[in-house]
């Protein structure tokens, strides 16, 4: 018994984290490894066959025009969503940074979309988008604008879903940027005011540069978040009309779980994971550059 205890004592750095390592290993690493294995197999439940495919699935993915269309769509969606939500978050943060009457209330109200369940709010958005029965067209007509097809229009569907994603995620950008603004030193701003700088000049030349590290964090989180958006797209359009809003995640989901081609679907996911990792690494690099 004592020998056991001594052994544990000697190997504390291994023994204590062991439960956590096992947990992470079984819940995270095993599925990742399994996905990697499956992506090199012919594994089509619809045909109930299973054999080694090597890199054939990857070759098939990379030569598929549907994959590349989904790829471009994913980046269009991500680009729009990140830029708009971060800009909007910045505007809200600047406004709420000034202490006016009711500022606390406003801060809480702006946070509400962030805490709402995406699937539930997406269902509501879907109903609001309905060109015949939805409330958005009713509002447009109230102010004298022509009705829109929203998510039923292949040209507008990405923009419409970006609208939902922005509604959802701007509060996140706002709260992080607001915290950043609050932690900025007051002195440079005060001295600039004394020197007669305008508000816009102060913001552009002093606040923004000082806020850059925080801004990069927001951009990293928002990019990852938008790249992996699935729930709102799946609920509102399921990738439609046709394939007009089929992003990479929706594409992969269809391949694996709708068509039951698990080998091909896994290959799509692995490629996608590599893309997300690449983009994230690029952002992190950019951030490091800010700090040095």
């Amino acid at each position, binding site marked *: 018994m004592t020998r056991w205890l001594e052994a544990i004592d000697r190997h504390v750095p291994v023994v204590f984290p062991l439960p956590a390592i096992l947990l992470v290993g079984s819940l995270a690493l095993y599925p990742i490894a399994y996905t990697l294995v499956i992506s090199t197999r*012919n594994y089509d439940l619809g045909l109930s066959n299973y054999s080694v495919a090597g890199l054939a699935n990857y070759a098939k993915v990379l030569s598929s025009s549907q994959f590349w269309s989904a790829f471009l769509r994913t980046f269009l969606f991500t680009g729009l969503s990140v830029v708009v939500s971060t800009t909007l978050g910045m505007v809200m943060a600047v406004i709420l940074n000034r202490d006016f009457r009711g500022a606390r209330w406003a801060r809480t109200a702006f946070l509400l979309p962030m805490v709402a369940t995406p699937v539930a709010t997406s269902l509501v958005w879907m109903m609001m988008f309905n060109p015949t*029965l939805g409330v958005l067209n009713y509002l447009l007509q109230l102010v004298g604008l022509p009705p829109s097809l929203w998510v039923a229009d292949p040209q507008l569907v990405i923009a419409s879903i970006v609208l939902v994603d922005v509604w959802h995620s701007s509060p996140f950008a706002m709260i992080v940027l607001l915290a950043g603004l609050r932690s900025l030193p007051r002195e440079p701003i005060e001295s600039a005011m004394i020197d007669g700088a305008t508000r816009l000049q102060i913001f552009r030349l002093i606040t923004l540069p000082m806020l850059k590290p925080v801004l990069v964090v927001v951009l990293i989180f928002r990019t990852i978040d938008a790249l992996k958006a699935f729930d709102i797209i799946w609920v509102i359009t399921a990738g439609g009309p046709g394939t007009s809003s089929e992003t990479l995640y929706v594409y992969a989901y269809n391949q694996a779980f709708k068509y039951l081609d698990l080998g091909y679907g896994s290959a799509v996911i692995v490629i996608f994971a590599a893309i997300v990792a690449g983009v994230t690494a690029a952002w992190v690099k950019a951030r490091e550059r800010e700090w040095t």
Partner: protein
Amino acid sequence: MSGRVTRRELLAAGGGLALAGLSRPSLAQAAPFDWKKHAGTTLRVITLKFPLAEIQQKRIADFQQLTGIKVDWEALPEDLMRQKIKVEHLGGATDLDVYMSYYGQEGQQFLASGWYTDTVPLIKNPQLTNPDFQWDDFIPAVRDGATVNGQVPIIPDRAQALPILYFRRDLFDQFKLAKPKTWDDVRNAAKVIHEGTNKQVFGIVLRGKGAAATSMLGPVLYDFGGRWADRSSGDIAFNTPEAVAAFDWWGSMLRLYGPPGSVNNHWAEVTSIFSQGRAAMVYDDITFATLFSDPAKSTVAGKVGYAAAPTGPKSEAWRSEPPIAPNSTGLAISGFSKKKEAAWLLVQYLSDRTSSQRYMLQGGLGARQSAWTDPEVAKALDPEFLETGRLSTQINAPGAAPHSIANVSKARDFIGEAVVASILGQDVKAALKTAADRCSELLKEERAKK
């Protein structure tokens, strides 16, 4: 092809039955049917929890009294039921005698594994089948759908039907329009009402959400002279001018007279637009009649007329054809059961006229012709609905995608893109060609892997 031969075989079997009766005149015909033959046996049944099964369950007590057979009845939710039946058969269990099965879903697999008992020899044998059972009473299309290479593995409990056209009687009266008989009539009525109401009421509402539309569009495709696939070779065949005409009809109806944003409409949206009184017509599944006629859920209750699927230039050619692939739902006797004769007593009892009639009274589609002409049913249901249903159950629907493709949902997505293209007014011919090419490639892949 096989269906046609089969029908003859069955007729021949009927003839044989008559001959058998002649050669042994006194015994079989004079003596009443012996229900007590297997008294004392116990049968085990697994079925689905759904209205018809409840009707059947209520009759078990009578069956036990009639036959002296004890019945162990288990009604389960769908997924659980499927799983249990599969697991028991895979384990080779012999104590499961009767179960409910969907041929379209699992039939090929089950048949190849020997999990069904062919009921044709049982039906043919007057010693085992009571004279009131009458296989001929089942709707011919239902019989065809239940017959697989001359065998009948499942005794069907319900009829399959073509989609029907629901229309607003009040609006049709207002604009002095007759009940539509052809797809041209439908187009005309949609135009008249849409324009006559200053576009306040949509002429028609149809499914437009890609894959979801193909099951409804299938019959229209065939009415225009198109085909999903060649009947015998299974090769993809919808890349034709006739198919373009059918897809174009569907898309242009929605574009010109339908609700905006039709490309996102599944049956839920379609039925709610119609039941809120926003559209003059809807062409969809027959089961929605109960929804539209319910005043609690529908503002158009009492104003809805029913018409059997309108026809196109080539309807005659396919509507009398046997089913492309077998399709039936109902009770089956396990191939592993050791009490097949007793099990058959139960199956024939539960598949009789009474079950079928009670199912119809609840709004279901009975599998037997007698249920459709039953006086009680006629009194309870809208005569126009009954007539429409009767016509619709006589036709074997062509399905939602080429029958030769196993990955149905993938094929439906490919075809669905052409539906969307047509609604958006894009090049239908090119979209159909793309869809056909993709389906052909999928078929080739599947054939290579088999």
